[in-house]
């Protein structure tokens, strides 16, 4: 069964990809899926009909209980027969229907093939989540097929409507399936049915959501508006998706669930049956007013789907059998009817029943198909539709809920069905009055490809209508798979003169009467379109309201002020965990006032400098005080036993301060603007809330003291597994190496972004404007230059030492890179940007790139030797002078980190380091 799904996917994809070259031959490629499925089904038919479901399971995500379970039982086989059988016929039909050179034919046909595959998956899926996946695949393929003619605004609108309605329903269904699956403690469909969960509020909500999804998919009132719109799709698509198969997905799900839930869940029958019968009547009324034959059939489909929902919704033993017959009967006559409309449209270029001429000789076979399809639709004896209607009325009479009302509504609906069937017959082929205007048109024959598929369906309708016994085994197996207590079912045409027969005849007679009296009855028929919420206006109003709400919300939330955006974010981040904190025991009160007095001194320094950085209104001074905070932080790290952090922090702080100086020298000295007092109060308020939350959070986390942490494991394994003594460094380059790789990628991206922002609009090489005066050479101070060189060499050596030693002693790639960056900063201070550029002929982004590639390479190389990503290896070299030198693969990774950090530092100077361009509008890069 998995192979069948794969076949559909592959052939569909081929037809789409090579559509242009294949032309109409795409039909043979994509048609292979349904054909093979059909053959498989015939081969396995015996097994399935003997009530032995065929199952298949592929383990997928075992931890989520998500297995790719497929199961073909009786009901599944019946649906599969429709999907594959009608699928084959539709492909044959398409081959004749579409002109060979039609634009985008391959895509269209390929999508139909993909749809067929999704539908096969849907009816075979035995896992609720897998079922949902295929469900949405049919929604998407349907959307693409309705909008096939994307140049037509109507097609786009209809496709969007179908997608939004069925997609929203699908989402509701997903939520519902999750709730139901949670209640049932299984996501297996067969398991759920076999052992349904006890009724509860959660189950009610879950089932209601699932039903919303099923109703929207099967075009039940009030969600039915999308189905008539979908008729803009090409006729073969309408015949296949929008009458025979896809729209039955909702019915399928209801049929599966009803036997398990209709009894125990009290509201199920009233709700489902009422919606179904309302849909049946509304659809019937509206079908009677259509002039476009396809729309007439579409509303007819809506109506019939309503009947199926009502019948299957009962969930009784009669109902599951009757519903199965109705499914078969409807698919056969409705697909045939669509094929007739397609053939007429093909011959006459219209499907408006006021303009279609009387069929002449050449159209006789088409007329015959149409006549039998209409008869079956109306429920005339000796057509399968009659048998189906008999059993349906029978089942409804035995409804455990309001049998009288339900039966009466179904009879009214059936009368309307008979009336619109008559209208279809009269409109398409039966009208004797209109003479064909053009003999050439009248003589036109429909090609066999348009006739044969319809003939096959019609023959089936007729044979099964006369000797329904041929369906006994299929219907029995289908009913038994839905409701295991059902024995074997025997279908008969004639059950004696009973109430059901009378009702059938009443429906037929009533239909004829309604059709004959359609003009006087016009006001009554118009009711169908005038229910308080008609689908079309409801949909438009809902979309408009959604749009307006979105607009209002955007207006309020996106008011354009950065402080307000940030304030909202910060406040949310503080308040949400803050309230949680308040509700729990966040502080047991045994925290020490202070760990050590050295820490208290450092804390005082940090806070004093931070307060100064906040309060002062000169940019430079504020930045310098920020630097003081940073250095004090390094002190704190030393006290806390984190030498690596201290080294890195000092290096970073130096670079940051230089960076601030480089940028702030351009900006005005003071922050001039003073804001109004209310804003200040608001800011202080938010700041206090954030501070208090953090205070509470800090004490709360401090109160947690897990006995063993993963840290102990890391300390234990650092040397044996990571070949390093510096645990922090081993974590960075080995245990959590992937994180580090991601992080240096962020560094590289930020560096590139900074250069791009700072240098945008300037010419490469730092030459801004030939007219600008050449840079003024700095006064050279020999002492400074010489001492700079000495210190530079010392710092560089220290950087390399930190890199090499970092695995076992304080240091590592980050620390080493930062120290090297500080060395570069020193060069810059003494000699300006030219001095930095003289360091190396390569551009600053070269170390950045080389570093990234080195680190990524070091991560991947172990894969080549059959290891896992970032697995570390160790190699011991015997160097004559130094003795034994251990080389670990982590060193290569760390070297990458080192290079990226150096590149970042060099990029900083490249961005901001050259002489300030003369501030004028002309040299501002022309961006104004």
């Amino acid at each position, binding site marked *: 069964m998995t192979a069948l799904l794969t076949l559909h996917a592959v052939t569909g994809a081929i037809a789409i990809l090579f559509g242009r070259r294949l032309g109409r031959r795409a039909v043979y490629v994509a048609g292979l899926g349904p054909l093979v499925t059909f053959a498989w089904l015939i081969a396995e038919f015996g097994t399935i009909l003997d009530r032995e479901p065929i199952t298949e399971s592929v383990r997928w995500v075992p931890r989520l209980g998500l297995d790719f379970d497929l199961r073909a039982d009786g009901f599944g086989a019946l649906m599969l027969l429709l999907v594959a059988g009608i699928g084959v016929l539709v492909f044959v039909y398409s081959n004749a229907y579409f002109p060979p050179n039609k634009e985008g034919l391959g895509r269209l046909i390929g999508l139909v093939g993909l749809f067929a595959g999704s539908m096969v998956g849907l009816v075979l899926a035995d896992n609720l989540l897998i079922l949902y996946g295929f469900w949405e695949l049919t929604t998407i393929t349907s959307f693409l097929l309705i909008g096939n003619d994307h140049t037509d605004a109507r097609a786009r609108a209809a496709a969007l409507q179908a997608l939004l309605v069925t997609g929203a329903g699908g989402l509701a269904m997903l939520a519902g399936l999750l709730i139901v699956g949670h209640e049932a403690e299984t996501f297996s469909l067969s398991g759920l049915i076999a052992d349904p969960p006890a009724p509860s509020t959660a189950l009610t909500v879950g089932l209601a959501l699932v039903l919303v999804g099923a109703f929207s998919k099967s075009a039940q009132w009030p969600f039915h508006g999308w189905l008539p719109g979908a008729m803009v799709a090409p006729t073969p698509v309408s015949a296949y998706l929008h009458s025979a198969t896809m729209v039955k997905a909702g019915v399928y799900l209801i049929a599966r669930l009803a036997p398990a839930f209709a009894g125990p869940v009290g509201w199920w029958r009233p709700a489902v049956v009422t919606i179904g019968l309302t849909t049946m009547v509304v659809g019937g009324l509206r079908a009677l007013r259509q002039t476009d034959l396809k729309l007439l059939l579409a509303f007819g489909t809506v109506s019939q789907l309503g009947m199926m929902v009502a019948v299957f919704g009962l969930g009784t033993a009669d109902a599951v059998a009757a519903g199965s017959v109705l499914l078969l009967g409807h698919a056969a006559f409705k697909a045939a009817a669509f094929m007739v409309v397609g053939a007429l449209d093909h011959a006459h270029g219209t499907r408006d029943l006021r303009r279609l001429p009387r069929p002449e000789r050449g159209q006789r076979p088409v007329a015959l198909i149409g006549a039998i399809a209409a008869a079956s639709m109306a429920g005339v004896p000796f057509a399968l539709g009659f048998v189906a209607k008999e059993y349906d009325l029978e089942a409804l009479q035995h409804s455990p809920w309001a049998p009288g009302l339900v039966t009466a509504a179904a009879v009214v609906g059936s009368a309307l069905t008979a009336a619109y069937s008559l209208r279809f017959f009269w409109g398409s082929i039966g009208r004797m009055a209109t003479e064909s205007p053009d003999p050439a048109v009248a003589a036109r024959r429909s090609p066999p490809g348009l006739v044969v598929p319809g003939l096959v369906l019609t023959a089936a309708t007729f044979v099964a209508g006369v000797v329904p016994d041929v369906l006994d085994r299929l219907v029995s197996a289908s009913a038994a798979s839905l409701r295991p207590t059902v024995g074997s079912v025997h279908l008969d045409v004639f059950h004696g003169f009973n109430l059901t027969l009378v009702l059938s005849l009443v429906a037929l007679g009533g239909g004829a009467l309604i059709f004959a009296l359609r003009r006087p009855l016009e006001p009554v028929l118009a009711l169908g379109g005038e229910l308080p919420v008609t689908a079309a206006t409801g949909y438009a109003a809902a979309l408009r309201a959604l749009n307006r709400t979105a607009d209002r919300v955007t207006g309020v939330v996106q008011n354009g002020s950065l402080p307000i955006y940030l304030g909202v974010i910060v406040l949310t981040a503080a308040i949400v965990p803050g309230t949680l904190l308040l509700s729990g025991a966040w502080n047991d009160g045994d925290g020490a006032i202070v760990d050590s007095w050295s820490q208290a001194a450092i804390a005082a320094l940090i806070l004093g400098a931070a307060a100064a950085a906040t309060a002062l209104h000169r940019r430079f001074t504020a930045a310098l005080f920020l630097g003081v905070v940073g250095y004090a932080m390094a002190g704190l790290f030393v006290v806390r036993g984190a030498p690596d952090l201290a080294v890195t922090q000092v290096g970073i702080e130096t670079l940051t301060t230089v960076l601030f100086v480089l940028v702030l020298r351009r900006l005005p000295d003071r922050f001039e603007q003073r804001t109004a007092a209310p804003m200040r109060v608001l800011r202080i308020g938010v700041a206090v809330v954030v501070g208090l939350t953090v*205070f509470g959070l800090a004490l709360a986390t401090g109160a947690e003291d897990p006995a063993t942490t993963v840290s102990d494991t890391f300390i234990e394994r650092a040397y044996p597994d990571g070949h390093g003594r510096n645990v922090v460094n081993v974590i960075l380059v080995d245990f959590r190496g992937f994180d580090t790789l991601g992080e240096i990628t962020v560094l590289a991206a930020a560096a590139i972004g900074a250069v791009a922002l700072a240098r945008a609009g300037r010419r490469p090489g730092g030459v801004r404007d030939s007219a600008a005066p050449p840079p003024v050479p700095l006064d050279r101070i020999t002492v400074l230059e010489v001492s700079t060189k000495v210190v530079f060499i010392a710092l560089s050596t220290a950087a390399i030492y930190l890199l090499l030693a970092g695995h076992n002693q304080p240091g590592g790639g980050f620390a080493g890179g930062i120290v090297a960056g500080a060395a570069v900063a020193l060069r810059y201070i003494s000699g300006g940007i030219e001095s930095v550029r003289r360091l190396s002929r390569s551009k600053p982004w070269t170390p950045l790139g080389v570093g990234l590639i080195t680190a990524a390479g070091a991560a991947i190389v172990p894969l080549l030797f059959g290891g896992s990503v970032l697995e570390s290896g160790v190699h011991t070299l015997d160097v004559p002078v130094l003795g034994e030198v251990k080389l670990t693969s982590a060193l290569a990774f760390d070297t990458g980190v080192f290079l990226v950090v150096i590149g970042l530092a060099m990029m900083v100077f490249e961005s901001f380091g050259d002489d300030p361009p003369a501030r004028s509008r002309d040299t501002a890069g022309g961006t104004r």
Partner: protein
Amino acid sequence: MSYVMAGTAATLFGLGTYLLLQRKLSRIIIGLSLLSHGANVLFVNSGRSGVAPFVGKGDAADMADPIPQALVLTAIVISFATTTLLLALAYRSWLLTDDDEVDDDVEDRVIGRHGHLDTEVSDEAALAAAVSVAAEEELPDGHEPEVVP
């Protein structure tokens, strides 16, 4: 965590937030730096304190927790990269406007004041409604409908 350290982190967060809510980009950057310092204080104080975590330098139980240290190390470097990028923004802002003030977004203001309906979706909805209503309006049987080109 000791009250002093918790208070230090909280104050750094408070001051950082106050600066973050300003309009001058350079103050926002300083505020962000203070925030990240505050976060680092929280982190290094979250694990147990002790001697530097080097294998062989003592008993594992006496060592400072290495994981927060590794986290803080990357946080330090990342916040440097963020600062660089934001300073580049401030620099760019200065190039274009002589200042590093972040003004309100004019487009957003317009939407906030008047509403700015995106009509495309509603139009499509109206069209879908129109298509399905038009189908209802039946002409008398004998009447030839106008041919829509």
